[in-house]
């Protein structure tokens, strides 16, 4: 019987096997390999010579790359501040005990996630379009003429992309905040009301502190996702006008797949990774600071 493998002992490894195989091929090895090639020069796709930090130095000397970093950081900050503020506001209103149809509102607010990002891009293009756009038709009712070419303007294009993302994201994260809100016990508000606290005080002293774990989770998730902004600006503006909507992921795509410079592309991807991690750490630690400062 010794030759017989104990089924119970081998079972967990058997169940983990598919995960491990895919994990090794499509995550672990690529993570290591792209880190390595970011320090090498490639010739015909194979590693030729070690060049240290040269790839990093080259991309940081490229003003287009610096521009794409600032564009991305600007977008991430503005989008997240607006979106999270709106999501919390909507969640608090939806969760208010005096209104009845919380789930119906949540369903409507959540629905934009059903549209894929390329579809969001073309639909919003048609909303902003002259002559045939929604804004033209809406303003037409009041006799106002709309002639603004939003994607030809540097600030207009950026804010249009922010608006699209807020439209799609606020309702989605509102569902997360609603889940966080329902876990706050009702008695806290009741006793606060007896103590004479008004709605704003209740929000600052009870809701926000207790929502903090969910807030941290949403900030990290949404920061990492929004750092990878690509679909809408790539489809609508290809980074223009004058690189005003050029994002890091677009720079990465251009370097790696249009110019086929894989080692520089790998360097760009690691710079992006560091920025994302840094942004998450900063925003989370600021959350913690403000939380402890208030107490």
């Amino acid at each position, binding site marked *: 019987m010794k030759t017989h493998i104990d089924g119970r002992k081998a079972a967990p490894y058997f169940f*983990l096997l598919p995960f491990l195989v895919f994990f090794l091929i499509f995550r672990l090895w690529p993570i290591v390999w792209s880190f390595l090639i970011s320090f090498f020069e490639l010739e015909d796709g194979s590693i030729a010579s070690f060049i240290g930090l040269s790839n990093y130095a080259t991309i940081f000397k490229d003003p287009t790359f610096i521009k794409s970093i600032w564009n991305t950081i600007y977008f991430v900050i503005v989008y997240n501040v607006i979106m999270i503020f709106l999501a919390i506001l909507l969640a608090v209103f939806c969760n208010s005990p005096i209104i009845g149809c919380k789930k119906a509102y949540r369903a409507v607010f959540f629905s934009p996630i059903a549209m894929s990002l390329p579809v969001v891009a073309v*639909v919003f293009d048609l909303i902003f379009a002259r002559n045939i756009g929604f804004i033209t038709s809406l303003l037409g009712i009041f006799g106002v003429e709309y002639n603004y070419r939003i994607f030809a303007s540097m600030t207009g294009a950026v804010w249009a992309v922010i608006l699209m993302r807020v439209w799609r994201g606020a309702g989605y994260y509102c569902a997360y905040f609603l889940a966080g809100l329902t876990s706050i016990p009702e008695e806290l508000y009741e006793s606060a009301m007896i103590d004479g606290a008004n709605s704003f005080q209740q929000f600052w002293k009870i809701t926000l502190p207790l929502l903090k774990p969910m807030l941290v989770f949403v900030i990290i998730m949404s920061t990492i996702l929004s750092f990878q902004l690509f679909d809408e600006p790539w489809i609508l503006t290809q980074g223009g006008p004058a690189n005003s909507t050029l994002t890091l992921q677009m720079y990465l795509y251009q370097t790696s797949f249009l110019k086929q410079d894989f080692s520089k592309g790998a360097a760009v991807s690691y710079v992006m990774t560091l920025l994302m991690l840094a942004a998450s750490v900063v925003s989370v630690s600021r959350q913690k600071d403000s939380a402890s400062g208030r107490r």
Partner: protein
Amino acid sequence: MIGTKRKRTLSKLCIHTILIIYAIFTLIPFYWMAVNSIRPSGDFYSRMEGLFPDNVDFGNYISLFANTNFLAWLWNSIIICVLSTLLGLLICSMAGFAFGVYRFRMKSFFFWLVLGSVAIPEIVTIIPVFRLMSDIGMIDTYSSLVLPYAVSMFGIFLMKQYIESSLPMELLEAARIDGIGEAGLFVRIALPLVKPGLGVLGIYLWLNAWSSYFWPLIMLKSQTMLTVPLGLATLYADPWNLQYGVLMAGSLISTIPIIIIFICAQDQFINGLTAGSVKG
């Protein structure tokens, strides 16, 4: 007392007003997409249109299927979504079962591996995976889209949680005594019990595969291999031939399946998604 009651009605009214305004804002793009898909394409550039359609015209839908490769794109998207979802469900539920049920050597190491790799975003893997795919001649195939995204860390967490919370260990022990093997425990006892979790993860995986744009853009080359989002983007990118009506018809068709899924299972989906985030 009447004063507080009036105040209550007033604030109720205020809240409803704000929420309804935001709901309208949310629905405008859906409305505009639908209206423009049934507007005759002919008079698009000629005159300003009103907010409401004058008459219903399905010409855009006919032209979408007759003059573009939309049917092929739809077919590609469905195949890719079915394969991604099935493979993802299989791998995640197996791994979740291993983490949720067994104690074994290196368990914490493997779990740390899952946790740690979440911190490193997917973008660092695209170049090596692209090179791998082109080395083995998989560019422009379904496999190139399905295989790299089969492992979902979120999916493994989710399945581990569902298995830990809904699968009593006593039940497994009893089944073992009845002579059911370990594979039988997984297929016949664990999987039926975590069906809600499989549903949530299935929708999540389908949604990801259905709306993905960046990776297919890198992987797919030929016109007939494109997925729906990529195909619609190429329709948009053709400035000589851009017909918004046709584009909106395609957009609507690509959005409807997800809307139907949401109408059927939105509550379970949202609860499943958000429950994972509170604990994890």
